[in-house]
């Protein structure tokens, strides 16, 4: 079964140990130059304010040795794996089992998510992590409308998240409006901002669009930081009211939910409520997206992604198509923002940096651009992986960056590399995402 790879393994073995050693030596030399000053020398402002430096040749030697060893391992792994593009023959029974598992994974995941608060009722940490993951799942699904379906590259998605969060925070703290009134308002405001961003960028394509959306995200953040009288500037907004269960507060008081139901109050109730709230919001996003894909507007989005010129030739109004994509994506971002504000009770501009936009975009791309399940899995992997490194606080972003690079090299098309088409003849067949265009904005 595995005959072709075996041949290639033999071929590359012929290159021999000398080749591997030479390659590792070159890598080590490059590493030595790269790290010589940055790691071999450490600078710091001394007691008099003057910069002083000391050397760390031990660390430098360790790093170079690691690179040397690492590149030998990588080279050996590469030879064992065979050349890139080797086709591996998978037995039919394994293939059908995989297909079955793939079909089963979505419902199993959904049921498991519903049961999380029941299973982990006593583990506050897991519930909090679950809420965080679901928030990113929702953001990913929201951005997926813009990037995955309409093919418009948006690097400033966090702006809408911020608009939603600040809308709720300011409306609730200044006018005392409840969460359930503010939630739709936050969505509408974010959608309005989406249209406002959409208008100037209608004519832009590709990377011009990317940089304008990035600039837009930065503008929103800078305005929030500097408009101190309204937003509190870098200090943020605190004392944001917690959500109520349709008017019934989740507090230990007499009018609280626990008292009304006649059960003992526990702070976990609120966490569980928040969990189901974000789950409902995320599922709403998912449901709306799935429905929209079957409506003319969703089809127009996907057509726009595939070929804008053909779209126009067929009489699709690209202006409204782009604007609705921006508005829909932004609205879900706004919902998620309002939820974020009510969950945290405190928001500041620090939560809305470009890193967040990059994280959400990474989730969408890693999820396979347009695959709903893929986005959910990618959010779980990204946020979960991020949490694993919580102990190594300062190495966290480093590991995150390395993971992003490696994942892109490993699977440029994302975890779920195929799509289910909404229009088909006779029966639905998964299409490889290699055939799906990524759009030009």
């Amino acid at each position, binding site marked *: 079964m595995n005959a072709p790879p075996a041949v290639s393994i033999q071929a590359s073995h012929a290159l021999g140990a000398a080749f591997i050693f030479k390659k590792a030596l070159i890598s080590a030399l490059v590493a030595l130059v790269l790290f010589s000053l940055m790691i071999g*020398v450490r600078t710091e402002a001394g007691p008099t304010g003057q*910069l002083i430096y000391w050397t760390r040749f031990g660390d430098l030697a360790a790093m170079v040795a690691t690179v040397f060893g690492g590149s030998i391992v990588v080279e050996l792994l590469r030879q064992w794996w065979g050349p890139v593009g080797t086709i591996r023959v998978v037995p039919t029974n394994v293939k059908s089992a995989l297909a079955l598992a793939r079909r089963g994974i979505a419902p199993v995941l959904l049921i498991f998510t519903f049961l999380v608060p029941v299973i982990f009722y006593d583990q506050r940490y897991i519930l909090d992590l679950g809420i965080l993951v679901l928030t990113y799942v929702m953001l990913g699904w929201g951005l997926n409308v813009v990037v995955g379906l309409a093919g418009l590259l948006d690097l400033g998605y966090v702006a809408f998240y911020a608009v939603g969060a600040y809308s709720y925070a300011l409306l609730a703290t200044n006018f005392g409006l409840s969460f359930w009134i503010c939630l739709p308002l936050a969505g509408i405001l974010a959608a309005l901002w989406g249209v406002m961003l959409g208008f100037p960028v209608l004519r832009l394509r590709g990377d011009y669009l990317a*940089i304008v959306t990035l600039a837009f995200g930065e503008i929103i953040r800078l305005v929030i930081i500097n408009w101190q009288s309204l937003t509190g500037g870098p200090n943020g907004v605190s004392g944001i009211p917690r959500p109520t269960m349709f008017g019934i507060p989740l507090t230990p008081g007499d009018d609280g939910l626990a008292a009304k139901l006649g059960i003992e109050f526990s702070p976990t109730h609120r966490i569980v409520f928040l969990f189901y709230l974000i789950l409902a919001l995320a599922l709403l996003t998912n449901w709306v997206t799935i429905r929209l894909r079957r409506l003319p507007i969703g089809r127009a989005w996907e057509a726009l992604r595939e070929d804008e*010129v053909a779209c126009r030739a067929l009489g699709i109004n690209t202006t409204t198509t782009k604007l609705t994509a921006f508005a829909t994506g932004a609205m879900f971002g706004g919902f998620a923002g309002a939820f974020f504000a009510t969950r945290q009770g405190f928001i500041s501009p620090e939560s809305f940096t470009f890193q967040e936009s990059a994280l959400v975009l990474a989730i969408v*791309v890693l999820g396979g651009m347009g695959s709903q399940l893929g986005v959910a899995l990618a959010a779980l992997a990204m946020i979960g992986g991020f949490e694993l490194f919580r102990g190594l606080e300062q*190495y966290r*972003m480093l590991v995150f960056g390395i993971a992003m690079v490696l994942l*892109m090299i490993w699977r440029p*098309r994302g975890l779920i590399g195929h799509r289910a088409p909404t229009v088909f003849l006779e029966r639905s067949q998964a299409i490889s995402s290699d055939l799906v265009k990524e759009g030009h904005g």
Partner: protein
Amino acid sequence: MDYFAQQLINGLVLGSVYGLIAIGYTMVYGIVGMINFAHGDIFMIGGFIALISFLILVSFGLTAIPLILLIVLLVSMAITALYGWTVERIAYRPLRHSFRLAPMLSAIGMSFVLTNYSQIAQGARVKPVPPIIRGGYTLHEGASGFVVQLSNVQIVVVIATIVLLALFTWLVARTRLGRDMRACEQDQTMAALLGVDVDRTISMTFVIGAALAAVAGMMYLLYYGQVDFNMGFVAGIKAFTAAVLGGIGSLPGAMLGGLAIGLIETMWSAYFSVEYKDVAAFSILIIVLIFLPTGLLGRPEVEKV
């Protein structure tokens, strides 16, 4: 009027630094067609290496400032260029023929890696250095006592920029490497068929871009007297804005865009508010792109159906 002249000088100097970084963006974009998000961090690394090599040279007892500056310039260009090469080799080359978003995300990841690498390696605190090049000239003394000054640092920054730009324009227009680069920009497959080593040319593009970013990093160090691990992001975004503003893929455009962004930022802080200077720069970008969707000097994209 004097105040305006002073701001004009400051803006042009700042713009030169942005322009040097922007060239790296625009070259890479022209050839590979991707936004090299890690380029701002390459600039930051260049600043750090200039700082460290400067400290070492001073502690060895060198006192001749021009000699020190020359060595620092060469060392930081060489090491930073190697950073550029390594980033391309690790993060972009495996994704060369992949779809458009993959190298971009890989670049964003690389940018995080470089930022946090230098934070871990050199600490999070801002690294200040005393002014290395002192003195300057008084150009004009106004009646109100306002003095228009041109400091020696500013002269060095502008002269270095002009020299490098001239050198670079010559490189692209007259040398074999420049011809290969222009060929790859037009059609990679055709260039490869005609004997151009595409991989090598792209590597060299990254190397040159990184070397120019290192110069910008060193100029930044001389001009502002400090570096920190976080300076790459904002400077990178603004330089990219400059590249887009000038028309991405065009070298004079990158320089022009850099100067424009530098001037807008300086004038805005001088006459309106310092807090909103970045907002002004980004807003101008959006406004220019509404009317000129391909930037100031960019060629309009012709779409074949």
